[in-house]
Structures are given as C-alpha cells and as structure tokens.
C-alpha cells in the first residue's frame, strides 16, 4: 500500500460519508451526488486492489498478514455496491444516511488495511 494514496482514500471516503449523512438528514432521497460519491469510493477501492497486487513485485512488501489484508479489502469492495443496491430499492432519506454509514465503514477499513500492511 502507498501511504499518500491511503490518506487520500480515507479522506475521500469520509467526504462521501459526510455528503451522504448530511444529505439524508436534510431529507434528501439518494441522488446523484450521494450515489456518485459511493461510486467514487468503490473505484478508489478497485485501484487499491490493483496497487496491492502490483506493490509486492516492486519491493513494497506487506509487514502483516496478507490473508487478513485481503479479507478486509474484499469485504470493503462488497460494501458500496450493497449500499447502493439498498438505496435504489428503498428510496427514502434514511437510505442516504445508510450510504454515509457505508462510506465511513470503508474509511475505517482502509485505515485498518494500512495498519496490517505496515505503518512504516
């Protein structure tokens, strides 16, 4: 993993979380900004997966457990699609808050992934 990218990704996920939670509390149903922010979070995770596959070959070796890292990464990859799916089925303001919860969960999981990969 790359520290700078991880920080950017956590910041992106937190921003998406704030957008969605505020949008939901303001009474908005899931809309383009909230759904779009989750799509960005998912794309950033896919990029992280590519980085994780390539990095060891370039000398960026994980310090911690590789399977544990991938348990987090694969679970994280599943969360935004599930949240968007939920938001499309149940079109209420609370689904916007659910999108935000998913985004914040991704922020925490990406941070945990960096901890496992190594904070060095």
């Amino acid at each position: 993993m790359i520290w700078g990218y991880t920080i950017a990704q956590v910041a992106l996920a937190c921003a998406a979380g704030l957008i969605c939670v505020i949008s939901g509390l303001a009474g908005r149903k899931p809309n383009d900004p909230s759904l779009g922010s989750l799509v960005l979070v998912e794309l950033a995770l896919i990029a992280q997966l590519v980085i994780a596959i390539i990095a060891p070959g370039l000398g960026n070796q994980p310090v911690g457990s590789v399977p544990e890292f991938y348990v987090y990464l694969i679970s994280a990859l599943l969360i935004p699609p599930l949240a968007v799916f939920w938001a499309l089925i149940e079109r209420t303001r609370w689904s916007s808050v659910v999108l935000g919860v998913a985004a914040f969960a991704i922020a925490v999981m990406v941070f945990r992934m960096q901890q496992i990969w190594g904070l060095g």
Partner: protein
Amino acid sequence: MSEHSPEPDPASAAKVSARGGAGVGRVLVAVYAVLAIAATGRSVFQIIDRFSEAPVAFALSAFSGVVYIVATIALGARLRGLAWVTISIELIGVLVVGTLSLVAPAALGLDSIDPFGRESTVWSAYGAGYLLVPLVLPVLGLLYLWRSGRAPAASGTSPSEVATSSPKA
C-alpha cells in the same frame, strides 16, 4: 405519455409518515450489518490463524459476531422479541467482557489490552478498537425498540375523548 401518474393519496402519505420511526430503524439495521461483518470476519480470521493465542477471547468474539448477525436480521425483519434478546445480550456482553479485558485480561487469555492489537476482539476495552460503536449501538438499539414500541399507543386517541369533545364543536 400517460396521464395516469398516481397522485400521493392521503392513505399512503400517512403510511410514509408512520414509517418515519421505521426509517431510523433502517439506519440501525445498516450499522448492525457493518458491525456483524466486521466482528464475524475478524473473529473467523483470528480463529483460523491464531486460535491458540487467546481461545476464550476469540470464541467470545465469534459468539458476538453471531449475535450481531441475528440482531441485524431481527431488526431488519422486525422480529421485536428476538431483537430485544440479542441487543440485550450485546449490552451485557460489551459491559462484562469490556470490564474483564481491562481489569483481568488474563481471565480471557489476553496478553495485551491493546484494543487495536492482534488479540483484540470486538468487545475488548468496551469496543475501543471499533470506535466504541459496540458500546453505543446496543443502547441506541434498545432505545429504538422501546420508543418504536410505545409510538402506536401514544399516537392513538382514546374513543371516549373523541366522543366527549365532538359535540362541543
């Protein structure tokens, strides 16, 4: 283009407003789902990878994961009785295990009390490794169950009141 686009009728509008409380419940279901994944995923990994290091703690962690899964389903399917039981177990669990992990970590077979460490479980140090969500969530869950259970009784007007007040108008 069809002119039959349905206007929101009063009955469905009333249904939507009555579901306001249920809406918050949906957020609760989502948070529970995330915690269920987090607790179960982590404990399964710990049990496969290093069960011998702290068997009691990891077994408790797996148990908590199962409880979170059942609680998520109970809240989602509005099985109130099951939700009361599972969320109560969570509150008791996080208080008892959280206290033990700080006061007597050896009782759980823990060498360290670091809530972010490799032996940390979902209930260690009151769930500090999960931003205290495991401590806050059961309280919110029980409050939600209590309030949503009271809501129908509070909103209903008693027939005698209607009977006595209507002739005056």
